[in-house]
């Protein structure tokens, strides 16, 4: 499998993604600079975390107009998997490839910690190797991960089983206390309608080796590998 990791000015998880996918998961990986008009022929495209364009205006608001985004859109329109992690998720929201928007964390603090994610949906390329209800320990690191959408959008996401991950307690319940940022319905990750685009705030690339504290992120990449 071949993966492309898009690099925007201000991306800072690009190398983590590259190394996790190449060295741990054994994929062929290529960086793609945001000014490129084309993507290499890739099975998977990753929009990594970071602070693209300094988070100016709104997180992801400027990156979504990058030249490469046309090719990213095309890749997704062809039904191939696209994952946006953290800032990558914010870019997907601003680009309208996923519904909703991000607000400042209710704590107003940058939150950097391991969280528990409950896997809510497994009928997608990103969690198909997992069981519904499985708990994953994966770190978050963001100041604006407070997912917001209108009531009817939330209902649509619920009805169509497009919420892939919810923040949960160690007991697996998505309680309010387990919500690190104020996200609606404890949402940590969602899918598009065609289920080939995933946006998630937690960083699966940072949980791929035991020395990092967890290998649970591997299960997401294993799912993509099929």
């Amino acid at each position, binding site marked *: 499998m071949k993966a492309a990791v898009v690099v925007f000015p201000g991306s800072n998880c690009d190398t983590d993604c590259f190394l996790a996918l190449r060295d741990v998961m054994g994929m062929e990986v290529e960086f793609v600079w945001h000014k490129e008009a084309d993507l290499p022929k890739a099975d998977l495209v990753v929009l990594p975390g970071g602070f693209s364009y300094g988070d100016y205006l709104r997180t992801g608001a400027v990156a979504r*107009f990058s030249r490469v985004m046309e090719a990213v859109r095309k890749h997704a329109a062809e039904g191939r998997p696209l994952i946006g992690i953290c800032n990558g998720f914010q870019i997907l929201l601003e680009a309208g490839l996923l519904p909703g*928007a991000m607000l400042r964390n209710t704590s*107003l603090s940058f939150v950097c910690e391991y969280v528990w994610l409950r896997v809510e949906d497994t009928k997608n390329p990103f969690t198909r190797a997992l069981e519904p209800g499985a708990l994953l320990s994966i770190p978050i690191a963001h100041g604006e991960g407070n997912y917001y959408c209108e009531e009817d959008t939330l209902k649509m996401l619920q009805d169509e089983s497009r919420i892939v991950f919810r923040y949960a307690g160690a007991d697996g319940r998505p309680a309010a206390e387990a919500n690190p940022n104020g996200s609606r319905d404890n949402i940590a990750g969602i899918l598009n309608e065609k289920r080939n685009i995933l946006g998630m705030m937690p960083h699966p690339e940072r949980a791929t080796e035991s020395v990092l504290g967890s290998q649970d992120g591997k299960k997401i990449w294993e799912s993509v590998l099929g």
Partner: protein
Amino acid sequence: MYKAVINVTLKKSVLDPQGKTVLHALSSLGFTEARDLRVGKHFELTVEASDRKLAEARIREMCDKLLINPVIEDYTLELEEAQGAER
């Protein structure tokens, strides 16, 4: 030339964590009369346009495309002819 002032706030239906925190800070400073506070953004934009109608149409397009995220934000627009319109 036209000068636009664009004020952006989070929609009424959207919780404003920043505004809430600032409001708390005010009341702990003794300003207990403060009841509601929303933090927003302010743009001052000068555009070149042949007439007011065109200027407004273009600015609204800029708002919709980049300056505002309509999922969470509302905005107001004030527009006035700037000095130096005839050069």
